[in-house]
């Protein structure tokens, strides 16, 4: 079984071509990044606002918990049922899949962002205001740079979940590495299923490493010192 999986993974024929691992990885990445961007566009501003003003924190906390409990497959089917008659072509399937992924990604990004902003040293915030920063300047110059490590870890954990869950796009007939799982199951090709799973895990780790590099470049070395000692 393990041998067969490796054989499948090492067979060049499985890598290239339209339905190959490379092409499906690209498709997988495309959904994943689209979903991450959309989720960040929603969650980061809300997180900044909640963290900065301290308002509606209870809502953010409860919403985050509730979102985490949503079953992905259920949402996918409901979204397909609702959207299928209203959208045309590929979008009729892509949109539901993206909605699932975005809903999944919002909680970690939202909680990372507001926790990061909220964790700003009260003395630094007080000093910033006392020196004459406006609310927006405090947010941009003090709270956001300080929150970046937590915002970035929110994004990374969201991305891990997105990449893992993006396999369900295949259920509604779309591409991505999930194809190997669905098709493998249909044709009882367990080597293909296992190989596809390994490819998903490898892709997730690879993307996480890339994001770790982004984090290293974006976060001030002053904050690294703080966490180190």
């Amino acid at each position, binding site marked *: 079984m393990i041998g067969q999986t490796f054989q499948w993974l090492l067979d060049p024929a499985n890598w290239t071509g339209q339905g190959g691992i490379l092409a499906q990885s690209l498709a997988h990445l495309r959904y994943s990044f689209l979903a991450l961007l959309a989720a960040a566009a929603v969650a980061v501003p809300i997180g900044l606002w909640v963290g900065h003003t301290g308002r509606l924190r209870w809502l953010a906390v409860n919403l985050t918990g509730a979102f985490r409990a949503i079953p992905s497959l259920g949402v996918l089917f409901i979204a397909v049922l609702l959207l299928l008659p209203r959208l045309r072509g590929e979008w009729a399937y892509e949109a539901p899949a993206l909605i699932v992924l975005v809903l999944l990604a919002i909680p970690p990004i939202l909680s990372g962002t507001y926790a990061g902003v909220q964790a700003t040293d009260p003395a630094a915030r007080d000093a910033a205001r*006392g*020196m004459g920063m406006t609310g927006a300047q405090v947010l941009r110059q003090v709270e956001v740079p300080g929150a970046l490590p937590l915002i970035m870890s929110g994004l990374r954990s969201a991305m891990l979940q997105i990449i893992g869950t993006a396999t369900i796009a295949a259920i509604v007939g779309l591409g991505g590495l999930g194809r190997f799982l669905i098709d493998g199951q249909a044709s009882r090709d367990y080597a293909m299923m296992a190989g596809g799973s390994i490819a998903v895990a490898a892709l997730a780790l690879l993307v996480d490493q890339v994001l770790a590099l982004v984090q290293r470049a974006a976060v001030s070395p*002053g904050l690294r010192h703080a966490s180190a000692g």
Partner: protein
Amino acid sequence: MIRFEDVTKRYADGTVAVDDLSLEVPRGGITVLVGPSGCGKTTSLRMINRMVEPTSGRILLEGEDISQRPAAQLRRHIGYVIQHAGLFPHRTVLANVMTVPRLLGWDRGKARAAAIEAIEKVGLTQDQAKRYPAQLSGGQQQRVGVARALAGDPTVVLMDEPFSAVDPIVRGDLQAEVRRLQQDLGITIVMVTHDIDEALTLGDKIAVMGYGGHLAQFASPAELLAEPADDFVADFVGKDRGYRALSFAAPDVAVRPERTVRVGENVAAGSGWVLVADDEGMPQGWVDVAGWGGPVPAEKVRRFGTVAEAGASARTLLDAALSSPSGRGVVVEDGHLVGTVTADQVLAAMRREGHVATPPGSPEEAP
């Protein structure tokens, strides 16, 4: 120059933080707001830069009602130092200090130059300017906090418990530094502390605030010690305020000339305590010439305790006398020996000048 006119701060729950405060902070010098916790001293301070808005009354800065100026704009012209420095951890020391100049709209080059100047003023190095706050000690961080408050060239600097989070030795250094900066720059410093010793050391004027946010007394340190307005102030100023008052009296004590010997020089037996000096005439210590005579051995020289500069306060003079093994306190001027004083001489001079009352029946009570 900073004028509180009937300023009251009452919170929504009815607590009165500051009760009808009227006060005029003079231009230049250090004015200290002191009192127990919850007396409204920090609230009063934070009303000067509109971090807290008064419920009623008004505050004038250079004759201008501060509520008429946009808060952020007002604050950029007032230095602000807080207890835990509040440095921005993601910015280097230099970038931290550049904050206010940049907020004032100065270009990068000018802001940088101003920041470097401020960093040097507080005694930090160019090398430290490149570091991040987490790489500095607490005392150094607080120096950065002071530099950051000075970089925008403010005429008024507010300090809220600036030194209470650092250890006592560093605190002493920082206090001296703040005093020096105030004199060099001619700025007005308003400082909040709960530490009466710090208030008495640094304050040119001290506002003692009591429970319920009312001003108990506003006076110079010497007045405060000599004539506390009520029991609360007397209590707060402390039990040893008699000793503390000695710091503010500089009696004219006739310093007696003192013979000095050098190490190796011959002394006659039974000379008692003799002051040993080096070749330049600088005092080195005392030697007890009791049951012996001859050349003075170096190992018999004892340190002389504290030394007073000529014209020092009664406290310093007395301390020199009391800490000297011979009972005679060494007085120096510009590194040269002037002579010695005894505790009796200091007290006598103080009685003569009316710093100390003469009890009836005492030998000094002159007919």
